[in-house]
């Protein structure tokens, strides 16, 4: 939809809103060429959609008349008209299978055998922060890319849930080994600084603070 204060053939895009006094400077006017015919058809389409949504009809009628034509009938029953000003792409979300996660764990690999690896699990579904369970999972169930990442100490997510693919409901499980970030130079430097300070705080002037037994 065009903004009410906009003339056909031009549009204003306001960029950013970090600071009010910077707004004027960052307001950019852009001139965009629109095909007048396309805009007219867009407005007609929009009006047609509004009218269709407000009209009463049987619940089974799912087609939208566009530019006065019902696309479900006539010459082009399945091909969208080429002269539409706006092409509405199908939502990508609808193409992906929907998933409902029933159970999610975070696991830490303890041992890796030939066929299975054992892990301790934190039940994320229960908002737990403690390892409360352990499991043995088959290595062959992992994706190819993940198999090389199964080493003691590796962190993974294990999910059990339902998903719908082409209208079919099915149960699924997925184990994804996390690709952990690296220790950066800055983190190492900061950690070493903390360690040096801690060492000094704990053990500086060792002679003065020699340990002595608690006693009575």
């Amino acid at each position, binding site marked *: 939809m065009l903004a009410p204060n906009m003339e056909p053939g031009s549009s204003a895009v306001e960029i950013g809103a970090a600071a009010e006094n910077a707004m004027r400077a960052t307001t950019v006017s852009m001139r965009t060429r629109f095909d007048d015919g396309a805009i007219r058809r867009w407005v007609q389409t929009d009006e047609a959609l509004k009218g269709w949504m407000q009209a009463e009809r049987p619940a089974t009628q799912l087609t939208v008349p566009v530019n006065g034509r019902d696309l479900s009938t006539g010459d082009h029953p399945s091909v969208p008209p080429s002269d539409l000003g706006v092409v509405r792409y199908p939502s990508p979300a609808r193409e992906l299978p929907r998933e409902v996660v*029933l*159970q999610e764990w*975070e696991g*830490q690999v*303890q*041992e890796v*055998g030939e066929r299975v690896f*054992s*892990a*301790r*699990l*934190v039940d*994320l579904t229960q908002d737990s*922060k*403690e*390892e*409360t*369970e*352990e*499991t*043995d*999972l*088959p290595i062959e169930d992992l994706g190819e890319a993940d198999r090389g990442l199964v*080493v*003691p*100490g*590796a*962190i993974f997510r294990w999910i*059990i*849930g*339902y998903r719908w693919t082409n209208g079919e409901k099915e*149960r699924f*499980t997925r184990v994804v080994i996390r*690709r*952990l*970030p*690296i*220790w*950066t*130079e800055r*983190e*190492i430097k*900061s*950690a*070493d600084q*903390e*360690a*040096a300070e*801690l*060492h000094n*705080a*704990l*053990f500086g002037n060792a002679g003065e*603070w020699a*340990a*002595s*037994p*608690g*006693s*009575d």
Partner: protein
Amino acid sequence: MPFSEMQANGQPAPDQIEVCVFGPNYGECVLVHLGNGNWVVVDSCLHEGEPVAIAYLRALGLDPARSIRAVIATHWHDDHYKGLSQILTNAPAAHIWISSVLIDEEFLRFAMRMNKNKTSVAGHKLDEFLKIIDDIRRRRSDGQLTFGYANSRTAIFRLDRSVSGHGHPCEMMALSPSHGDVSEFLERIAANTPRARQSKRAVPSPSPNHASIATLISIGPLGIVLGADVENSGRPTAGWEAILGAHKLQPFGPRASLHKASHHGSENAHNRGVWDNLLTANPLAVLTPWRKGACRLPTADGARNILELSQDAFITALDARSRSKRDGRPPGVQRFLREHRGIRLRSLAVPFGAVRFRTRDISSATWNRELFGAACHLSQVIKAQPVR
């Protein structure tokens, strides 16, 4: 945990020595009553989120703040550390002892670098250690000299005969770590210290655990050895070999009639020299179990090693490999777990148990023993078949 059962016989009398060992399948805590209301806590584990040491003392009607005189963290592994900071919060005047190796700059660098890894929901195994270190730093800056770093032959706690309640002097002495233990440990830690541009990973647990604090408690002629996680090293400078070498040069104290077997009774922790030189013949023995992945301690052979030398050997819990409860999970998850029998899900919440020893007869070392919860005679380990 049947703390109510443990209350039945009340608190130990002032002249009574008590050693109480707690241990689920992952974790260990030992409480020792040295006499006259003076308690020492060695390591810590949790029960329902609370340190068992605190829960037990309260169950006996004791105030942890007044009762706990010293807390010893034998080493930094999380099966010995859980809840230690809570114990110190409840007993702020207690002395805290850690292995001297843990304040070496090499280990602190390892700990602080690992602490930059915040990628796991469960945190990392060093969380509790860093809390203890913070507590020690605070004590030091407050001028409160109630902390110490133990090495072999460090005197950790002393109680004069005039205040011990039984007329005998008490001393708790560290048997380890030796200098050899310290240098081996630091080498391993250096090899495991994260470097820049390496992928972050969980905290490893380099083993063996020679750098842990094993102790000998001497109460007049009575001896108690708490073996921590010390193992054999194969070298005279580290592990049990180093302890036995030092004992040969200068005996640590009286032979012990009660032995908390080291490293959960593992085969590599068994050393005949320890039984021949540090312990009395046929001593009482107790140990806690341990599990991680497919590994279980003690093994049947480990249990046999101990049973050959001690008729009265006990374990605080029997590992039943309990299945995880599916109840309470959504039906879809329950169905999935039922249908995929190749996937085994086991609960870590296992039956909890404790073994308690008490004696008033310090000269002849005649101990009374009580088993609570899942505790049993060590021979049950050999009979038990793991449930899969």
